[in-house]
């Protein structure tokens, strides 16, 4: 009954992480009950709170999917944040500068597609450095995060800055490049649809196709895979392109569906939280859905926690880190990857 274990262990990791952070908060003198109550209320308390949670779950889910397939291939892609920023940047260049007058039926797919392509190529830099020059993807993806974030900052203060030059942000997206909202909601955009379809597709790719088998074989043992005629180098390139494309798509959906323009601090760390999402999901594409919802709830409840109980919103990063530690140290022994 491995699926029971696969469900119970992440739940236990979440429970222990929440309990530990409760103890830490109590030691700081916070009212733990009030804080957790506010967290829950801010995430699910009313329709708008729940909409907020759903909207935040979309990027976490998409980046988490990309990270989980990279990890399955034994590639430590820590670069989700940078890939997301580059995806958002490409989508912005395309829809506010290059093709701003194009009709919606062509502009919207191109906007999202350019984000995925750019994110994939940004991941591809790490792949090229690893395969070509032997540079660990851990370091290159981290360094590329800094470069991407600063690149966006440069773009919105310079070449992409809005027409009036008043704020460091891009022009707003033309209506045709924006994802529609679901009728009757205030914030929930149609980017939710690919976010709910892609886990199933990725599951088919990873577990029901030869391509997925090759990726997982390299993750289990590169030497054995090479012996079986699989090139770990080629799989490294493929999985980093794929992984980056998921994050880039997340960035494009974020600017097209939520903010409607590009600015600095677009992501609030989605790329890093997505690592926790992937691990809590035990690198399973479908498990990423509840894991993304959990971390999205933490993120959208953290504001209420700060307002009501005075617990800083950054505290949820402590909970995130504890979940990663517990998932990696107790729920996910090395032998099972």
């Amino acid at each position: 009954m491995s699926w029971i274990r696969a469900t119970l262990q992440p739940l236990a990791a979440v429970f222990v992480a929440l309990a530990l952070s409760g103890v830490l908060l109590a030691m700081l003198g916070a009212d733990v009950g009030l804080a957790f109550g506010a967290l829950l209320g801010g995430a699910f308390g009313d329709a708008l709170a729940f909409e907020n949670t759903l909207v935040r779950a979309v990027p976490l889910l998409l980046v988490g999917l990309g990270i989980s397939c990279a990890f399955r291939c034994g590639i430590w892609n820590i670069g989700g944040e940078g890939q997301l920023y580059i995806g958002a940047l490409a989508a912005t260049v395309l829809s506010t500068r290059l093709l701003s007058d194009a009709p919606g039926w062509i502009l919207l797919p191109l906007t999202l597609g350019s984000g995925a392509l750019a994110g994939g190529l940004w991941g591809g830099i790490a792949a090229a450095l690893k395969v070509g020059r032997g540079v660990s993807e851990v370091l290159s993806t981290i360094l590329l995060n800094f470069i991407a974030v600063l690149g966006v900052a440069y773009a919105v203060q310079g070449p992409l800055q809005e027409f009036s030059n008043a704020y460091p942000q891009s022009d707003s997206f033309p209506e045709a490049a924006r994802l529609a909202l679901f009728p009757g909601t205030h914030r929930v955009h149609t980017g939710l649809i690919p976010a709910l379809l892609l886990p199933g597709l990725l599951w088919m790719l990873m577990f029901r196709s030869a391509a997925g088998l090759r990726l997982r074989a390299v993750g289990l043992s590169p030497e054995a895979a090479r012996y079986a005629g699989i090139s770990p180098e080629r799989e490294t390139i493929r999985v980093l392109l794929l992984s980056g494309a998921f994050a880039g798509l997340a960035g494009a959906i974020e600017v097209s569906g939520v903010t409607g323009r590009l600015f600095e601090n677009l992501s609030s760390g989605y790329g890093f939280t997505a690592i926790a999402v992937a691990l809590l999901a035990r690198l399973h594409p479908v498990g990423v859905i509840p894991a993304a919802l959990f971390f999205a709830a933490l993120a959208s409840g953290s504001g209420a926690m700060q307002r009501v109980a005075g617990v800083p919103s950054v505290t949820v990063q402590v909970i995130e880190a504890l979940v990663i530690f517990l998932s990696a140290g107790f729920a996910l022994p090395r032998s099972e990857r």
Partner: protein
Amino acid sequence: MDGAMFAFALSVLRLSTPLGIAAMGELVAERAGVLNIGIEGMMLGGAFAAYAVATASGSVLLAICVAGLSGAILASVFAFFVLERRADPIVCGTALNIFALGATGTANRWLFPPDVVFQTAPQAMDLLPGVNAFAVLAIVLVIAVAYFLNSTRTGLEIRAVGERAEAAHSQGVPVMRLRWMSTLFGGLCAGLAGAALVLWISDSFVEGMTSGRGFIALSLVLFGGYRPLRIVAGALLFGGASALQFRLQALGVDLPYNLLLMTPYVLTLIVLALFAGRVRAPADLAKPFQS
């Protein structure tokens, strides 16, 4: 040397010092086979501890000690999961970095609410004109680590543990104890590097202020080929690049600010691309050990 050149050289020394200190700790940890990508977080923890203690007590020495201790405490969390639970070091290092961001952010907003008047930390003293205590510490550390790894019994044992933990174990070398000690030493150095950031380079704590210096230190170990003096040369190169960037800004060179800020990361990537492939890491690096 004229005044401007001297000021520039001092600035290079100042900006390379935290990189050199953190890299020496990482060097010892990696030589023992522990890949600690959590030094960024340990540096951040040290920086915050140094700021909090220095502003509260006014004692720079106490602040430095507590910063080193904080780095070591964070390293013990990392060591528990990686060494005892045999969890993946890259995942745990990432978790530690996120943990440090959240924990220092929480403590910072708790202890130093934004509406309270801005406090600056006292600065570490110059032992000679222009020669700061941290620079002396870094130089002593480099010499000590080089001597330790090359010429002491424990140093050689640590290198054996990093190369072939099984073989070292069968010779009676205490693998786990040496890996624990090396990891704690790495955390201690990262904490001290964080203290240098607050007590010498900046005078206050800003959330996320390490901004990748831990990862640059990690890269230095790699392209320094695990040799202390080459790592120092790398640290000076990066200190030089950062100093140059500030100098260009001060001179009003018309380059966008964000692109200038990008240079250390781009430079690190380029140097890694040039040298990383040729470096042979310790054979048992990042591999778990079970006796």
